[in-house]
């Protein structure tokens, strides 16, 4: 069971979606961009921020004669995302117990 920790870097909607995708699978840059419906430059900024925090790893791979960029969560990124989700779930429980 992860210790709940709110992570402001992950919580921003675009970055939360990136982490949601990458916690399920390694994904190509274009797939992530299309899934979260942002431009290349916006996604690059989010990825840069997550990469600098050590949460996302970027690798280049030649495929079908083209250079493709693949994104994945690092172990630190997985840990931070799991802790952030645990905190969100804790907050939802607290909110629902207060509203009863």
């Amino acid at each position, binding site marked *: 069971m992860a210790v709940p920790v709110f992570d402001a870097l992950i*919580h*921003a*909607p675009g970055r*939360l*979606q990136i982490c*949601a*995708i990458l*916690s*399920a*699978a*390694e*994904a*190509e840059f*274009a*797939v992530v961009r299309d*899934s*979260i419906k942002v431009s290349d430059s916006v996604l690059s900024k989010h990825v840069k921020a997550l990469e600098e925090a050590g949460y996302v790893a970027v690798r280049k*791979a030649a*495929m*079908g004669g083209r250079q493709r960029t*693949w994104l994945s969560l690092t172990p630190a990124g997985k840990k931070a995302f799991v802790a952030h*989700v645990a*905190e*969100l*779930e804790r*907050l*939802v429980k607290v*909110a629902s117990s207060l509203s009863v």
Partner: protein
Amino acid sequence: MTEDQTPQEALDLIRSTREQTLAKMDHWPWWYDGGYALACGLLVAGQGFPTAFSLPSVAIALAILVVIMRKWQAEKGVWVNGYSPKRARWAAIILATVLIGLMGLSIWFGKVQQIYWVPVVNGLAGGLLGYVGSRVWMRLYRQDVRDV
């Protein structure tokens, strides 16, 4: 979606985004099933035959696995290591263990006892197990992904 989303909204966003990712894996190409089953079958059956056959069969099986992996990545744009998700990991470990057991049987009956029909039957069983195992793995992976 704004920066001040509620925790419930954030959890819903995570779930819906992950569902989108899963949707990319809804269409299971025939060549993946066929290639994976063939690779498993070759790995299992090949062990029971003399080295002149067993070594090329391993090389061909590994080449098939690399080709289907790269083709899948190129078409889908997503990839999951079979051993990384929680529950699905166990399907991968059990499948690998059973396949290794079948390889051992192939070696015993083929190379030691020289009863060559056993490795052939084992190879067919290995191929079928590979086909079924990859489906079971995907089902468990989907459950893993849906549990935020």
